[in-house]
């Protein structure tokens, strides 16, 4: 998606910056006074732009390139080691296996951008999954399944979330928490859509509590979310009961979220919307900048980028619409539902971070909190809001991974769900120190982790090996990041 945030123009460290002043007198540049800014007023030729890209790579500005290359290496490696890895069936399966933690990672990127951490996102998502499953299994009767004491405590927490988010002036949080209360109290019959909405709203409510504790009480987010990590783990256990399992496979909708596929027509429609939307946004921005006399990347490069995305999308869509069933008796084709879900979240998150005032303020608070405060930004509101986003998105992740497994048990969202999600964001290139990161990073990192665990699983490696290898991949990603950072710091200005 539009993750490329004017990379060629952010000329920071190329020593050989082209400054053709004769071109600065170009008719597009209205004012002669602004001819001083060589790079802003002089268009680069395609060849220069490509050369400039490589010189920036040398200077240590790698972006998500290491993660993409790593992904490629891993795919080639597993494809050569296992016959069943690079099959359409397995690729589609891999996408839905990794989708849950990828989605949680997308939410965590917002928290990491402020230099905060949300250790509770995993177990918080588990609570959302448990509430969703309970509502489904008990046909909406949460009071009966929780017992009156727990039910009232649950309601009190939701009401508290409404009050706190209203106090923080995060109105979306207050509204969604209220929706959760309404759904819980009305106790209507089981309905998959209602249950998914409930899960997201409970996630929002949890985020309001975390956000309040971090931003208004002023506790370090590490401590708050470490405590809440334990709390939510206990809550899941209380809701489901020791050894209990809530099956949700019987609901066609809940089951299809991670296991279903779009029809062939819908798959191609998704391609048209996705590639067309990407092209429209990128080209629209390109030509509107040209029209206003601003420098852009050379048109051939922009066209190439759009064309490449469209081509890859078309090939992927075609392959996914081919029958990929492992045996001939059944028909299995179409793009998995998780793809449009992840793409929609990626588009939304990228738009919020790059195009809106709110996103700009998130980066500002992450970069320099005091500067943001003096610029009149409501820092505590921003800090609280990212936790609301994180927990709400984690709830969507819970829906996906619960659907994949087909049930919710007391371990949901526990174990290393959260650590994998943070790892995914970091592998993609998000900084733990704040100010640097994109939602796209989480998707790339999530794919890397999914490939590792899926590939090693096919090679029938033990859990021990999987954990060790995954850890080493994370370590490698962090090393590349640290080295490139050192290089960037040493690069000439």
């Amino acid at each position: 998606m539009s993750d490329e945030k004017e990379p060629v123009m952010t000329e920071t460290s190329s020593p050989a910056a082209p400054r053709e002043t004769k071109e600065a007198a170009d008719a597009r540049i209205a004012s002669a006074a602004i001819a001083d800014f060589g790079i802003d007023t002089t268009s680069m030729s395609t060849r220069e732009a490509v050369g400039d890209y490589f010189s920036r790579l040398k200077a240590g500005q790698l972006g998500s390139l290491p993660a993409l290359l790593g992904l490629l290496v891993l795919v080639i490696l597993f494809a050569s080691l296992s016959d069943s890895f690079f099959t359409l069936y397995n690729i589609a399966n891999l996408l839905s296996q990794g989708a849950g933690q990828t989605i949680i990672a997308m939410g965590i990127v917002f928290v990491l951008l402020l230099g905060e951490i949300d250790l509770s996102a995993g177990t918080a998502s588990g609570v959302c999954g448990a509430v969703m499953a309970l509502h489904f299994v008990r046909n909406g009767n949460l009071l009966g399944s929780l017992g009156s004491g727990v039910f009232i405590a649950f309601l009190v927490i939701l009401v508290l979330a409404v009050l706190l988010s209203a106090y923080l002036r995060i109105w979306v949080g207050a509204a969604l928490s209220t929706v959760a209360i309404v759904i819980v109290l009305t106790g209507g019959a089981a309905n998959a859509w209602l249950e998914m909405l409930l899960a997201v709203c409970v996630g929002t409510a949890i985020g309001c509590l975390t956000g309040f504790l971090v931003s208004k009480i002023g506790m370090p987010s590490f401590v708050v979310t470490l405590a809440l990590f334990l709390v939510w783990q206990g809550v899941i256990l209380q809701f489901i009961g020791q050894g209990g399992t809530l099956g949700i496979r019987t609901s066609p909708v809940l089951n299809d979220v991670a296991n279903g596929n779009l029809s062939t027509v819908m798959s191609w429609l998704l391609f048209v919307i996705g590639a067309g939307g990407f092209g429209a946004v990128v080209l629209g921005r390109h030509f509107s900048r040209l029209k206003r006399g601003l420098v852009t990347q050379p048109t051939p490069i922009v066209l190439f980028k759009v064309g490449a995305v469209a081509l890859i999308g078309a090939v992927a869509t075609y392959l996914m619409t081919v029958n990929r069933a492992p045996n001939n008796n059944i028909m299995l084709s179409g793009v998995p539902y998780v793809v449009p879900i992840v793409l929609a979240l990626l588009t939304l998150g990228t738009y919020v971070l790059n195009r809106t005032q709110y996103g700009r303020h998130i980066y500002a608070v992450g970069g320099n909190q005091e500067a943001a405060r003096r610029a009149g930004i409501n820092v505590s509101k921003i800090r609280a809001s990212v936790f609301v986003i994180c927990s709400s998105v984690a709830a969507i992740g819970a829906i996906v991974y619960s659907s994949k497994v087909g049930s919710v048990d007391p371990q949901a969202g526990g174990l290393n769900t959260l650590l994998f999600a943070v790892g995914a964001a970091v592998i993609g290139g998000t900084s733990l120190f704040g100010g640097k990161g994109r939602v796209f990073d989480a998707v790339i990192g999530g794919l890397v982790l999914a490939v590792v665990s899926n590939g090693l699983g096919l090679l029938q490696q033990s859990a021990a090996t999987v954990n060790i290898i995954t850890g080493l991949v994370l370590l490698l990603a962090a090393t590349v990041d640290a080295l490139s950072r050192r290089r960037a710091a040493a690069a000439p200005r």
Partner: protein
Amino acid sequence: MSEPILEIKGLNKSFGPVHVLHDVDFSVRAGEVTALVGDNGAGKSTLVKCIAGIHPSDSGTVTFQGEQTHIRGPRDAADLGIEVVYQDLALADNLDIVQNMFLGRERGSKWLLDEASMEKAARETLASLSVRTVKSVRTLVSALSGGQRQTVAIAKSVLWDSKVVLLDEPTAALGVAQTRQVLDLVRRLAEQGLGVVLISHNMADVFEVADRIDVLYLGRLVTEVHTKDVTHNQVVELITAGRSGDLGLARPEAVVL
């Protein structure tokens, strides 16, 4: 002389039992550079922060362009056209020049920022200040030198059609060439008709760019002099002792108890 654009009368400010500013009268004139000097702890930064609305003042009146007004917060000051360049610059390293200059006051709708318009305006503002050292307004602040950052911080303050700019030690952390740039910039702001207040410890800088010098001594504004009427030594005496010859505080023997 022209009427002051910003006039402060009888300003008092205490932090708990510590009385930091005593009945300070201070004025800023358009098109002039007023230097605010004083020893460490004399209350210079506190005075600036009172004007900027960061600290509420205990008493005193503020007259801006002939009208009495109240400054209750940073937003009020900004709305009047008072901008402050802080000692620590307050720029976000991870954002580029344009994003920093428009931080908190982005153009376009809340849900779709107008990047093109901001980029153009930022470039034009920097150009109007004859800044030539920045290659691209999309450069991240982390990649800028100290002098360039200072320039961006100052440009940020003039972007808003501001009328008064307060600079708190803008050259403290800079090298010779960079100090030169910033001082030229300060002079140019005054030539463009802004009221400029410069806080500095460097007498050479003060004598070079300031039209008037206001001396703070232990929270009192002891005197306001024209730069051309005084010498270095007199100003240093005023800063350290509060008086110099007939200037400054009355001699103790002349005080009627």
